[in-house]
């Protein structure tokens, strides 16, 4: 079984889906000749031609908006936004067009499309190459939002996203693009959107995370194990719709929950998960659910690593819920 990075898993998923379905096409800045600035689409234009792997003008509104029209007309476009930080010129196309097309037309028109984007910090990118804007999308009715953390999931989830009949924002933590390698089957498999993965089983507390912060969350769980504390680790994988069933089932058993994500805290996905745990499980909780998140500052350059939830910060929060 081949061992792939996340970047290679994206490439494999796109390749397989384009081979399977001629409606699938890729568009974005530098995705063609260059193969993408992170090389996610490397070799695809040579294989499928410049019409199905389309270099576009430097305009996120054009990329996402055209994808809406292509999807409505029967294509299955996969748009690449070079960095999640640059999605905002195309944000109106996501919010006003893609997210609402099915609804506003009463189901007459739909926008089955994927908008891929590298997300998150840890690459010394300053605030315009490091943000985690998933809450904007999760807050917009009509969009599904996936945030991956590993190569195996990436391939299975991207293939599901491409086959989904609704628009999916597909977020890829860029600091993990080449940092993690996993065995990824070359044969067909799909991972359903909306299903979390239990990464580690435990009974003392539940650590809920997704995306880039899964790395620090797993490390924190290791350290806790070293001192005899058994942490269950849940990778949400999809943040809209997030897997409420899996989260509540785990926290109902452990009675303690931390929600860990590097996006800013205010009105975040982590806040939504924590609020739901508090609303639905109050009687079974041994401690209030805590959030360990990025800060409500623009993403800083000099404090690149400090901004994101560190293992220390996760462990301190774990101590608070365990000692409560």
């Amino acid at each position, binding site marked *: 079984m081949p061992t792939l990075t996340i970047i290679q898993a994206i490439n494999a998923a796109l390749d397989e889906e384009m081979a399977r379905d001629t409606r699938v096409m890729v568009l974005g800045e530098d995705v063609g000749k260059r193969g993408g600035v992170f090389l996610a689409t490397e070799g695809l234009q040579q294989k499928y031609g410049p019409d199905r792997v389309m270099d576009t*003008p430097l305009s996120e509104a054009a990329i996402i908006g055209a994808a809406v*029209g292509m999807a409505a007309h029967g294509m299955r476009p996969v748009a690449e936004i070079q960095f999640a930080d640059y999605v905002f010129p195309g944000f109106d196309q996501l919010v006003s067009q893609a997210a609402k097309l099915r609804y506003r037309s*009463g189901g007459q028109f739909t926008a089955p499309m994927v908008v891929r984007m590298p997300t998150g910090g840890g690459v010394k990118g300053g605030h315009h190459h490091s943000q985690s804007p998933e809450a904007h999308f999760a807050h917009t009715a009509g969009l599904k939002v996936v945030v991956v953390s590993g190569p195996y999931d990436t391939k299975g989830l991207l293939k599901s996203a491409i086959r989904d009949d609704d628009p999916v924002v597909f977020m890829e933590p860029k600091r993990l693009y080449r940092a993690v390698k996993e065995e990824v089957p070359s044969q067909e498999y799909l991972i359903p959107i*909306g299903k979390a993965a239990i990464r580690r089983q435990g009974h003392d507390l539940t650590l809920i995370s997704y995306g880039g912060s899964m790395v620090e969350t797993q490390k924190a769980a290791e350290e806790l194990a070293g001192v005899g504390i058994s942490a269950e680790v849940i990778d949400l994988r999809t943040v809209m719709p997030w897997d409420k069933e899996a989260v509540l089932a785990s926290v109902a058993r452990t009675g303690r929950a931390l929600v860990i994500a590097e996006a800013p805290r205010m009105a975040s996905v982590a806040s939504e998960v924590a609020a739901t745990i508090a609303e639905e499980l109050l009687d079974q909780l041994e401690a209030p659910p805590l959030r360990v998140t990025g800060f409500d500052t623009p993403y800083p350059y000099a404090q690149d690593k400090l901004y994101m939830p560190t293992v220390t910060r996760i462990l301190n929060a774990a101590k608070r819920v365990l000692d409560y």
Partner: protein
Amino acid sequence: MIKHSWMFKPFSDLPIALVDEGGDWVADFPLELPPDFLRGLYRDMLAARLLDEKFVILIRTGKTSFIAPHAGHEAAQAGIAQALQRGHDWLFPYYRDMGLMVAMGVPLREIFGQMLGNAADPAKGRQMPSHPGSKALNIFTVCSAIASHIPPAAGAAISMKLKGSGQVSVCTFGDGATSEGDWYAGINFAAVQGAPAVFACLNNRYAISVDLSHQTAAHRIADKAHAFGIPGYRVDGMDVLGSYFVMREVIERARAGHGPALVELEVYRYGPHSSADDDSRYRPKEEVEAAKRRDPIERFRRFLEKQGLWNLEWEEMLRADLKAQIDRALEEAEAMGEVPALAMFDDVFAEPTWNLREQRELVREELR
């Protein structure tokens, strides 16, 4: 089909007009259109005008909450509808296009359903009035966000090119839209791809109250086509045949693989921007009256009369027939009743997610 390919010259100093205000054919090519087609154009324009008048009654009687009057736009709207292949080509309209919807053949009952936001609306009452759409006729449902439909129109055109479907994507918008970033983004992408798209600006010189001189420093909106490397045409949008012939030419030009065009159709909005607007605050009554004296329907009536295709008897019959159709369609639409409350939760996704199921249940309990 057009005998002389690309008859019209882009970037003309004067707007292209083929029928003058006296109703005379002034084009340098022979008019070879069947009488029924010409009468049909008149019928479409008159139907649009009568519908506009009916909308005013709907708002005054409290049956609808919003109207975007289109009187003054009828010639451009009828011309566009006849220039494209209805049901084959795609249309990406904007909110002042109800007259265009009639000419496209959207059933009047659906139009009133949309205005009432009730069960007769194929979009299930999801949007405010004057936001039509029809999958059956390839009419992309209107979105309020100005110019946000331009990139999707470009995308559909690119898809048409990739599939070799022989279709054209026609997109309409007002003069205000031409200031939006998405307007540039969309047309630019379509132009780069040489996609079969036609962008038609119904320039009525006002974006609500903001007049054209505060909208753009460009001499003409058609001139903006220079920036994309595509032809731009300035057309007298009060002349239905001028609108029809220019639109037909650029649509067939796009279909033949020669890429997009921008067409500026000069019209005038007789009414306020919407039922929530008071246009006396920003434009003199005399200006409106002067525009109405150039009325597109009157002009075309004079033309038809000179061609021996119009008389008072026919006019009265046509009006009575259209009014009866409109009244009947409104009655039918009203009889369809309200959209079920819980339909609010449908069509967010193909399958409702758990949060939507929970929220639907909450409302169901509340209504019990």
